[in-house]
């Protein structure tokens, strides 16, 4: 497919799900230390009282891992499996279904820009291009050379009237236009 002019919209798109798996020592998370100790263990125990099955605490437990470590490594999946009485394979099956769990380390700032149609007609692709340019990330899903930024396109963020919404880690920015991007990125550097 010859790429027409127009940047990210033209080529194949990368999402958190399609990134090619890499497995250097860092990504194998060889020095893994358990997450569910002390306060985090207590938090999980409290969560378990909310559901009639242990398995129901799986998504919340994975969120705790990601909050602590920034991503969900295989040893983390094994730990979650052990505390909830599941198998590591089962946990991996669930992790891979959901786009928000990072299966690889990501940049310090994980930037998600909505480009679905309602935002697309308002110029969302210009916002994506501006983020790639300002952060120095070579492509969608790739982390910038300084390790600080990963930029991806995402599907509808449920804030279409505030086009274009951008999520940077847990922060939700509304009505971002391409010309606002340099100051947003500048403030993070």
């Amino acid at each position, binding site marked *: *497919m*010859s*790429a*027409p*002019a*127009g*940047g990210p*919209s*033209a080529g194949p*798109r990368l*999402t958190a799900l399609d990134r090619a798996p890499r497995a250097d020592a860092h990504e194998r998370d060889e020095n893994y230390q358990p997450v569910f100790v002390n306060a985090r263990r207590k938090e999980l125990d409290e969560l378990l009282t*909310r*559901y*009639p*099955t242990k*398995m*129901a*605490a*799986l*998504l*919340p437990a*994975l*969120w705790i891992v990601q909050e602590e470590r920034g991503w969900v490594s295989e040893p983390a999946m094994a730990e979650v499996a052990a505390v*909830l009485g599941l198998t590591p394979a089962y946990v991996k*099956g*669930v992790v891979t*279904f*959901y*786009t*928000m*769990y990072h299966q690889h380390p990501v940049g310090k700032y994980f930037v*998600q820009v909505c*480009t*679905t*149609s*309602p935002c*697309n*007609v*308002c110029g969302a692709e*210009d916002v994506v*291009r501006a983020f790639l340019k300002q952060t120095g990330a070579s492509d969608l899903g790739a982390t910038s050379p300084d390790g600080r930024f990963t930029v991806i396109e*995402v*599907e*509808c*963020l*449920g*804030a*279409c*009237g*505030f*086009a274009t919404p951008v*999520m940077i880690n*847990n*922060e*939700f920015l509304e009505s971002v236009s391409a010309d606002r991007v340099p100051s947003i990125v500048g403030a993070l550097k």
Partner: protein
Amino acid sequence: MGFPQKSHPRETTVLSKHFGDPDARTLAGWRNRGGYRALEQTLAMEPAAIVQMVKESGLRGRGGAGFPTGVKWSFMKPGDGKPHYLCCNADESEPGTFKDREIMRWTPHALVEGCAIGAYAIGAETAYVYIRGEFTEPLERMTEAVREAYAEGILGRNALGSGKRIDVYVHKGAGAYICGEETALMNSLEGRRGNPRIKPPFPATAGVFGQPTTINNVETLVAVPHIINNGAEWYKAMCLGNAKSTGTKLYSVCGNVRRPGNYEVVMGFPFKEFLYDLCGGPPAGRRFKAIIPGGSSVPIQTIAEAEATVMDYEGFVACGTMLGSGGVICIDDAQCMVKQIARLARFYAHESCAQCTQCREGTAWTTKIMERIEAGQGTAGDLDTLLDIADNMTAKTICVLSDSCAVPVVSGIQKFRDEFEAHIVQHRCPFRPATAAAVAA
């Protein structure tokens, strides 16, 4: 009200009255605005009487399908000895829709109250509010509201001193549109992959954790306290069109429109006046070309069709589309329909859970062909191929995500065939020069 716009005099603000007012978020502020009076009244009533009242009000599900809420509640058999559950669907991911987000951001206690009343009415002691993972602020607001409600004894073992147990828990999703489908949501809540389940059994028989379950949208549940406070007749009277569609509806308006936001109007409002008077019409110098009135899964309307539409469940159907979730996507004459429909197809391809062949393959091939046409490499047979694929994707799968991908393609080819053909004949996107110029500028 048209948040973030100012309230328009022709709106009827019942659910959105306090949008933009931070004081309404706190328990004290909410009580000053009449909060939790309905729950108190409810707990003194028989559950069957509440179900009957909601039935009489004519309230229908605001999540997309428009099923009568009271009827859905009446499927839950009292005294069957099983635990019952209420699931509140706050997964809001249908492109064009952002109303539940504002309800939770500004009036979280309204949803806590709606959940508590709903749970009591269906004989449940536990309600789960499943919020999409990207909604960080709504999640925070809801968590705080639930915390306050427990601290004040509104929720818990002895809800409002009634001797009845009502627990409400907030549960965070992790990024998957399909988890808004009711049985996928239940699987996700159970800690599984979010694959929809084959029905039957229906949730009222075997839902979450295998127990009788009712699932309702956020907007549906927040309407209930108002019905309890003001009566079914009051709710039913909010209707300009026909008696089958009652109450107010929040519409999320987005895309190429002068005043995007959430507008609340009574059922039966004229769509033309809505689009031009309330929402301000298209951006300066442009015209509306197409409107998708109920979120991306409903048929696309030409602007002429939209202008003739009455805004209620039957009115949208009479004009070839559906009310859906109330996400009004406006598309102006500077946009390429082929590009936008290709983008929607990509959305569905990305979000397909992939367990049905027709959906997994159909969404992927539809996207490839649509993007090929948009890039100027379509062939004369492509439109027939697309329609054939769409036919194979419709009414054949476990859930309707597959059908939803076919809908914009079929209605787009029907109504904007000239744009598709122009791409194929000219071997390029006729709208591209304008886009390229905009990029260079």
